[in-house]
């Protein structure tokens, strides 16, 4: 599998898409947050979605791991409608990194990272080995961090733990909701580079949402632009940068 910069359409034949949105619509009460979204994400691809707050970015992510269900259309994961997936099984194979991180304050860093392996019934020794491997991967020396508590870590360190936790069972799909949004600019840039390294290494399928165009350009093989609940553009960073659509251009000016 290559990291396909799928420049053309969702029908491209780089194997079946891992995730596909087919005319998806979602509303909270009467407020439509996503309308007629069609999109497909290939295996190993990193898709970055940009949009203002309230553009429906988070909802789009939650549709993938069935935290919400579409009101119209369908979301397919591995070719199967999320309505038909057992939610527990689907979520176990979908890593999720929240903006607020949401580390479990009553568990050590190691126990936070290996919680899903524990739910999956991995033996203790394998869990330990995995924790060490993951903490190394996200740049937190295990000897120093494994036994510490979340409250003892800085925001950037917590975010790294959040990424490690999401990667624990090597899920085929990784969803990231503004993962670096709450950090100071220096840490953000540093983590972004770190993440690029990890992603090149692991070749996971990644769907990342952000309000930061620069971040989207840096991390995405493709960049999707969400505006008013619609996907107004979805292409390689190079083509998005050269887009002529005034709505898309407006994003380049205000966000970049």
């Amino acid at each position, binding site marked *: 599998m290559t990291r396909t910069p799928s420049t053309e359409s969702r029908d491209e034949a780089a194997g079946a898409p891992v995730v596909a949105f087919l005319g998806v619509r979602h509303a909270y009460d009467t407020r439509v947050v996503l309308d007629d979204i069609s999109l497909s994400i290939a295996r190993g691809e990193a898709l970055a979605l940009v949009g203002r707050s309230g553009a429906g970015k988070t909802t789009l992510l939650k549709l993938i*791991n069935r*935290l919400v269900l579409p009101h119209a259309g369908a979301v397919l994961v591995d070719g199967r409608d999320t309505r038909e997936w057992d*939610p*527990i*099984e*689907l*979520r*176990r194979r*979908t890593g*999720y990194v*929240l903006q*607020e*991180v*949401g*580390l*479990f*304050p*009553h568990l050590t860093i190691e126990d936070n990272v290996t*919680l*899903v392996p524990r*739910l999956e019934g991995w033996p203790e020794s394998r869990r330990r080995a995995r924790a060490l491997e993951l903490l190394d991967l996200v740049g937190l020396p295990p000897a120093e961090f494994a036994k510490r*508590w979340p*409250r003892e870590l800085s925001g950037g360190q917590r975010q790294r733990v959040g990424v490690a*936790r999401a990667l624990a069972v090597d899920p085929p799909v990784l969803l990231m909701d503004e993962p670096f949004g709450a950090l100071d600019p220096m840490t953000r840039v540093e983590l972004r580079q770190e993440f690029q390294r990890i992603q090149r290494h692991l070749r996971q399928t990644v769907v990342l949402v952000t309000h930061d165009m620069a971040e989207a350009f840096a991390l995405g093989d493709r960049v999707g632009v969400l505006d008013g609940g619609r996907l107004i553009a979805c292409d390689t960073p190079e083509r998005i940068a050269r887009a002529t659509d005034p709505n898309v251009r407006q994003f380049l000016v205000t966000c970049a």
Partner: protein
Amino acid sequence: MRLISFWIAHRLELAAMVERHLFLVAVSTLAAAAIGLPAGVIAAHRPRIGRPLLAVASIAQTIPSLALLGFLLPIPFIGGIGPRIAIVALVLYALLPIVRSTAAGLKSIDPAVIEAGVAMGMTPRQLLWLVELPLALPSIVAGIRIATIVGIGTATIAAAIGAGGLGEYIFRGLSMVDSTVILAGAIPAALLALAADGALTWLERRLSPGRRAWPRTTAIAIGTAAVMAVVVLASVLTPSRSDAIVIGSKNFTEQVVLGELLAQTLERRGIPVTRRLNLGGTFICDRAMLSGDIDMYVEYTGTALTAILKQPVLKDPDVILANLRDAYSRRGLSVLAPLGFNNTFAILVRRGDAEARGLRTIGDLRAMAAEWRPGFGYEFAERADGYAGLSSAYGLRFAGQPRVMELDLVYRALASGQVDVIAGDATSGLINALDLAMLADDRGYFPPYHAVPIVRSAVLLRRPDIGNALAQLAGRISEESMRAMNSAVDVDHRDVAATVREFLSRLQ
């Protein structure tokens, strides 16, 4: 310090009371936690069920504790005298803090943490056990801590219904008007509450790593200082006990009259006495004797045998007295010669009925039983040697279920024709006042209840003149005399001291 010496003198009793107190609180708090925890989880997850649940718990909390015990008393399976009903009441009080703090603890969890758990693919059960409950634990422990402290305070009320615990000293002290005895129960209860607070606060802090610790040490220091201040004040204010002989009595008219009788008899011989009359029930008087709080009181042979010594019922007065003297001497108490009258149960009818139908004995009732309604006090209706034994001993079958009411009311119910036959006391002043007739117990069904003075043996040894003085009363008080004195006090509202003084003057 009187209080300290009281505790030292009563250390075994005190230890037993503390143990019983802790038992009541521990059992009720654990039961409340077993109910309250799941209820709190439901309240947090399903507000629609949770809100009414909390409302019910809040209402239970607002009922005053004595009233709650009163409500529970007549309920089958729960009610009745003893620790069971006290535990039920304490559980009701402990529920609210536990339910509320469980729900609050669950609701205060960072939603991002919950969302992370759900998104990781945790089942609701895994989320509850691995994330929600551990995170709510400090709050849950706080609720249990509050419930425990409230329970330790409320459990003192349990003594009112015979459940025991430190409240016994408080109630005993209240009826003796002796603040030392009140404090002897109140201070250990306060210390228990402080200790429980300290221990559970420590646990709470252990369970919440990283949360800022409360200035608990300050609170405990202030609490301890307050308790010390009360102890010092109390020991300064309470007058020290003189070497006067302390006379006690139970809490009904005849007993108060008899206590006064003992007091005046000693006073006539120039022996100084302190009156602690109207103390409470049989057990309170007996315990006060054993602990040396009182030196003498009048007991009834049948009561001493069955209620205090827990021995089977006997009929022969001489055998009973011999048994009592033997058993009491081993408890450091002396049983003096009986005063004369026998305050046994009396089967009473209206005098008019007795004369019209020629009723003399209880056996004569058989002809009437099918159309007559009986009325009894609670005790007689319940006791095996009460109504049940009586009807089988005499083969009586009354028309319907007996009407059961307060003993005082039974006499008036008979006089006013609401019932036709009652069980009362042989020496009640109301027998003459309401013109009632007592039927003879010709089959000797009722055990004898001869009045006997009980005196601490140590007092008799130290003051032989006391034994001599009381010996003068032996066999001098007949049923009629006792009835007349009761009637003077209860019906004519005469002064007890004056009534007794007249009686003693006539005796000499």
